[in-house]
């Protein structure tokens, strides 16, 4: 077993092109649990630790207008809680704050959350609600995929073995976002159900994605359209309760939860409807106050 730790991306991509069977190590919070518990044999490893450029982020204008935040794949959950990045992407910061503990947040990375592709990945509903794009690189070149096309199923992604996720491009929302998560305590907990929602007053749009209630984050464009056409955009007052309830009902119906050791499908479906309702109310109130 050899651990390769290049300090240049090109060297990492060349190594992966030469041996696509390399196990890619980012933070290690998922990989090392599997190794420790003997669920995974340790093969040759490509460590991304020394690729410092993947730790950076910046803001750039989007071709279609507005800005997007470009986050290197090794940006950690703790990085997402840094003041400047949290201001640019508040929902991502909210989600990052619910991940594990300080120790885990210091170690785990955004790219790792995506490539692990767990249905319970906490950043995934945020990335889905904000229509983020995943940037992949290989020795042969780069490509970009919308998050919804990158995540194929539980722990299945569109990453080819010779590719690395190098960056995630997240459009800056045109209004206040909200992220809510249910677990048995406020720390060290894998999500039972979660919800990311954005109210964009400028475009009169609502985007909502549910986590842990389907193989990948759940969006329902019909439900979003339904609520968008019923919100009182011309005023600052709250939407009619039937609108908020109807939206929660529609999102719950769109969810596809399963029974597992953390919760029953029935509980998850109920909970996610409550979360969608609550997220809509909170984000709407903040958009009205802005």
């Amino acid at each position, binding site marked *: 077993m050899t651990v390769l*730790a290049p300090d240049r991306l090109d060297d990492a991509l060349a190594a992966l092109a030469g041996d696509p069977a390399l196990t890619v190590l980012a933070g*290690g919070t998922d990989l*090392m649990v599997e190794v*420790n*518990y003997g669920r995974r044999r340790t093969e040759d490893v490509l460590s991304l630790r020394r690729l410092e450029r993947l730790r950076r982020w910046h803001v750039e204008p989007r071709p279609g207008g507005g800005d997007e935040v470009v986050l290197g794949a090794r940006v950690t959950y703790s990085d997402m809680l840094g003041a400047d990045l949290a201001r640019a992407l508040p929902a991502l910061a909210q989600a990052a704050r619910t991940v594990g*503990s300080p120790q885990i947040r210091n170690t785990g990375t955004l790219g790792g959350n995506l490539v692990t592709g767990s249905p319970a990945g906490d950043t995934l509903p945020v990335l889905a609600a904000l229509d983020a794009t995943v940037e992949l690189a290989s020795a042969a070149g780069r490509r970009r995929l919308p998050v919804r096309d990158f995540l194929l199923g539980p722990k299945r992604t569109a990453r080819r073995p010779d590719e690395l996720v190098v960056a995630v491009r997240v459009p800056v929302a045109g209004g206040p976002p909200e992220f809510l998560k249910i677990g048995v305590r406020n720390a060290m907990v894998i999500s039972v159900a979660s919800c990311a929602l954005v109210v964009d007053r400028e475009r009169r749009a609502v985007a909502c994605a549910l986590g842990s209630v389907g193989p990948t984050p759940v969006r329902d464009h019909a439900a979003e359209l339904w609520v968008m056409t019923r919100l009182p955009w011309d005023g600052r007052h709250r939407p009619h309760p039937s609108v908020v309830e109807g939206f929660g009902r529609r999102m719950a119906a769109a969810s596809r939860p399963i029974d597992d050791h953390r919760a029953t499908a029935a509980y998850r479906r109920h909970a996610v409807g409550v979360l969608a309702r609550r997220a809509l109310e909170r984000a709407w109130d903040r958009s009205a106050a802005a």
Partner: protein
Amino acid sequence: MTLAIDGSGGGGAGAAYELTVNGTARRVEGARPGDSLLHVLRDRLGLPGAKNACEQGECGSCSVLVDGVLVCACLELAEAAVGCDVTTVEGMAAPGAEPGDAALGGDMLTDVQRALVEAGGVQCGFCTPGFVVAVHDLLARVPDPGPLEVREALAGNLCRCTGYGRILAAVERVVGERAAAR
């Protein structure tokens, strides 16, 4: 440049590489491929301060600093820590103390260790090294944390004896002592 760390243990002799632990270069021999930093610290380098409990980052009892950042040693691949500065609880003992001495007497203890003892924050003691590292990390970054900040910072360290009240009291005590000394 690509660092290539051989963890294959060719010839059955086990891996051989070097880690920087508590400021000293330490040669690691005989580690198994895929060993966590925690296993290497405890079983190869004779540093048993970081404790092994859950091996999945849940309990915080193996907390160490890697390049000054608080992490769980059980989730670090040992070979991937080559070239990093690793600080364990042994490296936090007061100047002049030797590994293991910290248990012997007051003068060897850091202010956090002493406060934990005096406030009754140590019962079985298994979680204590992890708390010591995590509290030092918190107070180095935030000298005067609020009660909720302390709870959030220590949320990844589990204690099954104290009910946490006395651990939180110990943190408060250190914050007060350090403020008075400034």
